[in-house]
C-alpha cells in the first residue's frame, strides 16, 4: 500500500474518531448505541495504530 493511500486511510479514521468523540461527549446514543460506539472506538484505535506502524516503516 502506498503512503498516499495510507495517509488517506489514517485521515478517514481520525475523522471517524472525531465523530465518535462528539457523540460520546454529548452522550448522543440515539442512532448508534453506546456499546456499539465503544466497540467501534476500539476497532478504529487498533486500526489507527496498525496504519501508523506501516506508515513509519
Amino acid at each position, binding site marked *: 500500500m502506498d503512503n498516499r493511500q495510507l495517509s488517506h486511510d489514517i485521515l478517514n479514521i481520525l475523522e471517524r474518531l472525531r465523530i465518535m468523540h462528539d457523540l460520546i461527549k454529548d452522550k*448522543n446514543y*440515539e*442512532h*448508534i448505541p453506546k456499546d456499539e460506539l465503544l466497540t467501534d472506538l476500539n476497532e478504529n484505535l487498533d486500526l489507527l495504530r496498525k496504519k501508523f506502524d506501516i506508515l513509519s516503516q
Partner: protein
Amino acid sequence: MDKIICLGKNYSDHIAEMKEAAPEMPLLFLKPSSVFREIKNQETIPLPWERGLIHYECEVVFKLYKKNIIGLGLGLDLTLRDLQKQLKEKGHPWEISKVFKNSAICTPIQGVRDFLNWQDTPFVLKINSEVRQESKLSKAILKPNDIIHYVDKFFPICDGDLIFTGTPSGVGPLHPNDLIELQFGPIESTFRLGNENG
C-alpha cells in the same frame, strides 16, 4: 470527510423560480472535500469573482456516520451561474461551475440533539441584513431518511460525508464585501465575502 453530496431540485418553489421542469427525483452531484469551507465566525471568505456571476443556494447540511444523521449545519452551495447556463445549453457536464475553492461553505456542525424538532426549524439566509432565503426542511420534496436511501443507491456513503440537501426559492447573486448571516436553530454564523487574493 470523503465527499460532499449535493441535491438539486429538492424544493418545489426553487424549481418554479428557475423555470425548469421538475425531475422525477431530485438531482445528485458531488463536490470534493477540497472545496469545503467551515465558517469561522466574522471571517472573510474569498471567492473567484473574475470567473463570473456567483449564485448562493442556502441548504441544510447533514453530517453522516454509519448512514445516520448525527449532525446538522447550514451551508451555501455556490454556483458560477453564467458558466453553468452555458454548459447546460451545450449539454456538457457542469462540474466546473459547481466545483471551485470555497464553493461549499458551511457553519460548524451542531449535534442533532441540540435542535428541537429540527425538520420544522426555520433556516434563514440574510445578506447585508436582508432575508433572502427562509424555509424549513419539512418543505423539501425528499424527507431526510429518503434522502439517505436515495443517495445510497448511487454513491458509497462514507463516515463523515456531508449532504447538502437542496435549496428553497430565493437564490441570487453574491457580491464582494457582502455580509452573510446563516441562522438555523442554535446555529448562527456571520462572515463576509472577499477577493481571492485577499
